[in-house]
Structure formats: structure tokens, C-alpha cells
């Protein structure tokens, strides 16, 4: 700190830091308490979950609930389904979205504003608006109860946002790079694939992650388009665990935790990309 800074400003800075720490500590408690309660319950026996007074730390920690959930319901299959569906959706939306984003970011053409408005408007369309026709059309195409049907549905949620994030990200990359490529005689596609997209890796990773999370966390579409057990996704499996028995809380919290684990892990590993990509992509939008 420079010696010219008056004491009052220093005091103010210390006060600011104090307020910030208080707020941040409270926020940690707020953010983690519900998760801690879920974690704690999942390691309890059924009897302990219903014993009073409540315990935050299980007195006899047991993985019973995890074993039960895994044997009673085919969660392995649910996981496989969720990974396939979310993965393919994320790839498809990100690639198509990146192409569209690049188109919006680098070209001027007639009808651009209307097309942009169209992409924005598709973000506003709610799943329930199209869920009825999906149910019927997919049944007619024999895609009801298939993962392919679910992927098509998820693209409706992910693609508009992927295009939007990519556009914002490409906007933040200097156009001079494209022009240099054009001077060297490269085609627009080559420039996109070899120069711009590689620079946009953080943005691409965050778009992939965002799309993956959106698809993974969905319940509405899976609920409407899947009715057989072997095609259920994890969230659907968890939701049905609520409905089928008298609620077995340790088992349900175990299933919930396992169902959230992939997104938590992905996020922890990629959070740098995620925050940067969202910051540059969505905010600049």
C-alpha cells in the first residue's frame, strides 16, 4: 500500500475486507448446509434418520443406503443413459452452436438482426410448449422411449444457449486474426477450424459443460418421453425413487448425491473454464 494513502482510506479498506469476510463466511454456511444434510443422511441407517434428536454426524456411519440404492434399482443403467444422452447433446449443441456463433460474430448479411432475434426467441421457448407434439411425433417415428428421442429434445434446450455463448466468446477474439488468415488465402471454414476455434477452447469447454449440465439436470423431458425403466436417466431414476416407496430418506439422499456427483466433479475440475467462458460469452452477449 502506498504511503500516501490516508489513514481513513486504509481503515475503510479494512472495514470492507471485514464485511466481505463476514458475508462470505455466511454464504459458505448457506451454500453447504443443505448439501451437508444430504451427505449426512445418506450415511445413516433408516432407524437413525428417523431418530431424535437429529445428528449431523452419523453415529454409526454406514454405506448401507448406497448398496441398497444400487441393488434395488438399476442405477448403473441410469448412469449410462444419462452419460450418453448428455454427452451427445453437449457435443451436438456445441458444434452447431459454435458454427452459428461464428457466423453471427464475423459476418454481416441481410436478415441478420431477424435471425439473431430468432435465436434469442428460441431461448425463451419453454419445454412445456412443445412437449405435447414431441410425445406424439416421437411416438409416430418410433423414437418414444429411446435415447435418440431424448437427445433431440435436449438439443432444443441447449442449442440456443450454446450459439449465444459462442457468439459472445468469438466477439471477444480480435477480427484481425481472421483477416490475417484471409490474406494468407485460407477459406473461412479453415480459419474457423484452425485459427479461431483453437483460441476459443476455454469458451468451447464452458459451452460443453453448460450443455452437459443442462441435459443432465433435466427432468421434464425424461418424464414425458421415457416410460420404461431401462431407458431412464439418473434424474428420472431419482425422481421415481421418491414416488415408489414410503420415502426411504437414506437411500433417496444417497441416490441424489450420486446423481449430482458427476456434475459436481466436472464443475470442480473445469470451474476456471466455466467462469471465464460464461463471463466472456454470456455477459458480453
Amino acid at each position, binding site marked *: 500500500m502506498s504511503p500516501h494513502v490516508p489513514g481513513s482510506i486504509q481503515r475503510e479498506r479494512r472495514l470492507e475486507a471485514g464485511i466481505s469476510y463476514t458475508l462470505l463466511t455466511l454464504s459458505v454456511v448457506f451454500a453447504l448446509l443443505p448439501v451437508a444434510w444430504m451427505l449426512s443422511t445418506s450415511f445413516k441407517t433408516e432407524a437413525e434418520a428417523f431418530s431424535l434428536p437429529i445428528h449431523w454426524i452419523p453415529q454409526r456411519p454406514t454405506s448401507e443406503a448406497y448398496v441398497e440404492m444400487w441393488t434395488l434399482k438399476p442405477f448403473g443403467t441410469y448412469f449410462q443413459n444419462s452419460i450418453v444422452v448428455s454427452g451427445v447433446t453437449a457435443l451436438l449443441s456445441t458444434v452447431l452452436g459454435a458454427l452459428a456463433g461464428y457466423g453471427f460474430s464475423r459476418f454481416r448479411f441481410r436478415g441478420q438482426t431477424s435471425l439473431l432475434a430468432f435465436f434469442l426467441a428460441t431461448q425463451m421457448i419453454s419445454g412445456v410448449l412443445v412437449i405435447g407434439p414431441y410425445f406424439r411425433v416421437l411416438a409416430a417415428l418410433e423414437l418414444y422411449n429411446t435415447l435418440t428421442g431424448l437427445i433431440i429434445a435436449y*438439443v432444443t434446450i441447449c442449442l440456443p444457449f450454446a450459439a449465444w455463448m459462442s457468439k459472445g466468446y468469438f466477439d471477444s477474439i480480435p477480427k484481425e486474426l481472421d483477416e490475417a488468415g484471409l490474406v494468407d488465402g485460407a477459406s473461412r471454414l479453415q480459419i474457423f477450424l484452425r485459427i479461431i476455434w483453437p483460441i476459443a477452447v476455454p469458451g468451447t469447454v464452458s459451452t460443453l459443460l453448460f450443455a452437459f449440465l443442462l441435459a443432465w439436470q433435466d427432468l421434464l423431458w425424461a418424464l414425458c418421453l421415457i416410460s420404461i425403466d431401462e431407458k431412464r436417466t439418473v434424474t428420472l431414476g431419482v425422481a421415481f425413487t421418491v414416488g415408489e416407496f414410503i420415502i426411504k430418506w437414506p437411500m433417496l439422499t444417497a441416490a441424489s448425491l450420486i446423481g449430482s456427483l458427476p456434475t459436481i466433479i466436472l464443475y470442480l475440475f473445469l470451474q476456471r473454464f466455466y467462469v471465464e467462458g460464461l*463471463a466472456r460469452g454470456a455477459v458480453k452477449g
Partner: protein
Amino acid sequence: MASGRTWHDRHVGYLFLLPATLMLAAVLVFPALITLKLSLTPEGGSGWTLTLAHYQKAFRDPVLFQTFKNTFAFVAWSLVGHFVLGLGLAMALNQTLPGQTFFRLVALIPWTIPDVVAGIIFRWALNPIHGCLNPLLRLVFPSFPAEFQWLSNPTLAFPSLIFANVWRGYPLVMVMLLAGLMAIPRELYEAAEMDGASRVKRFWHVTLPGLSTIILIALALDMVWEFRRFALVLTMTGGGPGTLTEVLSTLVYKTYFQFFTFEYASAMAILMSLVLFILSLPYIILVGRER
């Protein structure tokens, strides 16, 4: 040569946009048109005999009316919560403090929890006898009643639901605002500080103007997302008690798949989308003009 490239370039631009546009038209616009047609078809009817009966019914439907009110309240209060919490935390995280990375990491965790799970956690945490909220409250306020009912209480079920949604949704708004704060040049603050502007003044004259666009974008996107919120409501309250916490997406879902009145459900979905579209029109215009 130069004009030749421009002409060519314009068409290349269309080519980049073509795949996504076709895909969206096929998977979104086409089904939306089917919904529109279905909403104008008499119940059990087919072909092109059209009717406005479902819309007339909708305008007289007290449940739908209440659900619209619920949804507006749900969205408005969620937005207030997300904004206040998001801005407060973003400002706290925007300083160079030791441990900042840790705090940022933790603050974003609720966003990684799927809606379904968030609903389940809060239903369990708010359980009157075996949940953790009542004992925690009794720890702070010893006179708090022991088996206090949250979700089965007609006045408290809705605020409880909103509380859960605030927990679930503040991180995204926070990240966007944080990104906006980081983009405000430090020199602006330093100049204001040297001019003797107080904290409050700096907030009003530097922070808020610098953030205004991002605040609008974040709130507009959040509004759209909260308007469509489904799984949280379904697993936490299921719309109950009665229809007190019903929101539009759960009502339309139930009308489709539990009552099987497809035509009426379509009309509701169209009305819902129309309202959402009107509400987000300022945002679309704003962003369109920015270009």
C-alpha cells in the same frame, strides 16, 4: 476482387448459420406450430375445424388464473433473492482477499445440484420432525415451536419453495455480475476515491452504471429460466398443498400427462409462452440494438 469476396462472404455467413437454424426449426418451431394448431382443435377432434373454446375456457379457469399469479410471484421473488444475494457476493468476491478462490468455488456449488435433488434436499430438510431446519432454528431461537410445519402450511409452503429456489439459483446471477464487476476498470474507483466519493457514492456512480447492462441481461435470462422452473416444484411440493404452489410448467405438465386433455394443455402452454415472450421482449430489443 474485393467486392467479389464480400459477396461471397455474405453467403458463407449463411452457411455457418444454416445447420443450427435448420435444427432449431425442426426441433422447436415445427413442434410449437403443432401445439398452436392443437390448441385450436376441438377436444378429440382432428382436421381443420378450429375453435377458440380452449382459450375461452382458459380465461374463466380459476386454477389457471391462480397459477399465473403463483408463477409471477415465484419468478419475482426468486429474482429479488438471486439479485440481492448474487450482487452482495459478487462484490465481496471482487476484492483481492486471501481464500477468494475457495469462497468462489463453494458459492457456486448449489448450481451444480440438479433441480430434482434440490427439491428433495429441501423437502427433507424442512421435514417438521426429522428435518434439520427446525432444530437449527431452535438452536438460535429457543422458543421456536418444535414440530413446525413448513410445506403443509398454506401460508408458508410458497415462501419455503421460493427460499429453496433462491438457494438453487443465485450462483449463476452471481457469476455474471462478478464478471461484470471485473470488467469495470480499477482506475474509475481510484479516481472516485481520490475525489473523496464515499463508498455509497462510488456504488451508485461507478458500480451500478458499469453493471447496468449485465444486470439487465442476467435478470432477463434468470426470469426466463425461473418462469420455466419445473423439477424443483414437482419434487419439493408437487404443487401442493392443494394448488397453492402450482406453477405454470407443472400445471401444463399435469394437464397433459395426468388429465390427458391435450388440447386444453396446449392452449395453456401457448398462453404461458405468449406471456413469457412479451415479458422478454425488452431484452430481445435491447440486445438486438446493441449490435
